[in-house]
């Protein structure tokens, strides 16, 4: 589903990604962990070209991400959820969710609203359709953001620390939505600090440090028997 070959990214002369090779299979849930500044967000953002790689190749669902047309095409298939939600504050929840399907997929308003209501039901917010984002709690906003991304019917979902900006009591409601999404077979790449969630939901765990994938494998194996010194060090600090 996602194929990344020798991906490098520098900001000025600071190399943040130092040759990443990664293949994500359909329906696979890949969880990415690592210290702050290790390049996790940059890696994720290269998967939909919000960050343009310095070199290397990214292919999503058979579309190579090069050139404006291809990138827009691929983005239709890649949903992204941000740490700070990034909902459109001047639009109602319903309008937030229906805008892109109508403008990009050219779906009729009726159909877009029908899909939006189904998704809002799914994330437990059907009663908030007419609310504006600033009126919602953080957890509610993030669930709307997930529904907004899903409304495009993407084949892959990217999550960049979706619960890091939330009060502790709201983390679970968002993780639960993500869990049910994983159970339905969505392909997902998730950057998170929620180790319990990573262990439970991830098919594969990726430990990233200083712009490289240091270690990867089934979450239980990596958590219980880390092989690399840097992974052990990281776990000793956070667990």
């Amino acid at each position: 589903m996602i194929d990344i070959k020798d991906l490098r990214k520098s900001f000025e002369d600071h190399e943040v990604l130092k040759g990443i090779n990664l293949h994500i299979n359909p329906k696979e849930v890949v969880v990415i962990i690592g210290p702050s500044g290790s390049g996790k967000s940059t890696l994720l953002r290269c998967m939909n070209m919000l960050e343009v790689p310095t070199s290397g190749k990214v292919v999503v669902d058979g579309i190579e991400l090069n050139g404006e047309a291809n990138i827009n095409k691929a983005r239709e298939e890649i949903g992204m959820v941000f740490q700070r939600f990034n909902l459109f504050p001047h639009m109602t929840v319903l309008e937030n969710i229906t805008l892109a399907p109508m403008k990009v997929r050219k779906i009729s308003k009726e159909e877009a609203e029908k899909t939006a209501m189904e998704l809002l039901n799914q994330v437990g917010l059907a009663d908030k359709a007419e609310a504006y984002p600033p009126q919602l709690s953080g957890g509610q906003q993030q669930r709307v953001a997930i529904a907004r991304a899903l409304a495009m019917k993407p084949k892959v979902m990217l999550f960049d620390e979706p619960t890091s900006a939330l009060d502790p009591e709201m983390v679970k409601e968002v993780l639960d939505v993500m869990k049910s999404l994983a159970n339905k077979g969505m392909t997902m790449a998730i950057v998170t600090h929620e180790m319990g969630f990573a262990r439970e939901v991830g098919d594969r765990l990726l430990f990233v440090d200083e712009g490289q994938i240091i270690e990867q494998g089934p979450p239980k194996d990596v958590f219980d028997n880390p092989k690399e010194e840097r992974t052990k060090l990281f776990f000793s600090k956070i667990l």
Partner: protein
Amino acid sequence: MSFNFDLVIQSFPLLLLGAGITIKITALSVGLGMIIGMFVGIARISHVAPLRMLAAVYIDFLRGTPLLVQIFLIYFALPIMLDQRVDPFVAAITACGINSGAYVAEIFRAGIQAIDDGQMEAGRSLGMTWVQTMRYIIVPQAFKNIIPPLGNEFIALLKDSSLVSVIGFEELTRRGQLIIARTYGSLEIWLSVAVIYLAMTLAISRLVAYMEKRLKTS
């Protein structure tokens, strides 16, 4: 010193007519300036380098030369190039509108840049193009933020529109001059003219404050 109140009262209706014309050219010029300013402001931050440069040249030229000279260029110099007379009304609105466009462009640019980058990223990540994201997400939010500076621009232009009196266009200032030529009542007429300008600018700033409040609560 003598102050002729009768002259003030007699001249007032004529001056108010002039004020009406001042409002008309200001409104039309601001309208033109808004359209120009929106496109130039967006061009100024687009990722197409030639567009960006053109917009920068436009803004620099119009903000770096006096409006009076721009009015002369359009009213006296342009006809020589076109080999055709330019109507004073058209010249006045074109000069003021093009000039205002440069200031509005900078207001728009600042308003757009004040919007969180995450908004553009969210729009783009949903597959929308840069233009679609600008149109449906960024510009509508920028509009809310730029109402106060746009109001200031409206006020500045209303005052600057007095400059078009030099090409004989009969707005408020020109009316005043014409009445003085007949009556020699400099003191009475210039004071009246000043009071009318003041009333108009105060009214506009009140209106802008009201709109700002309405938008904030919505």
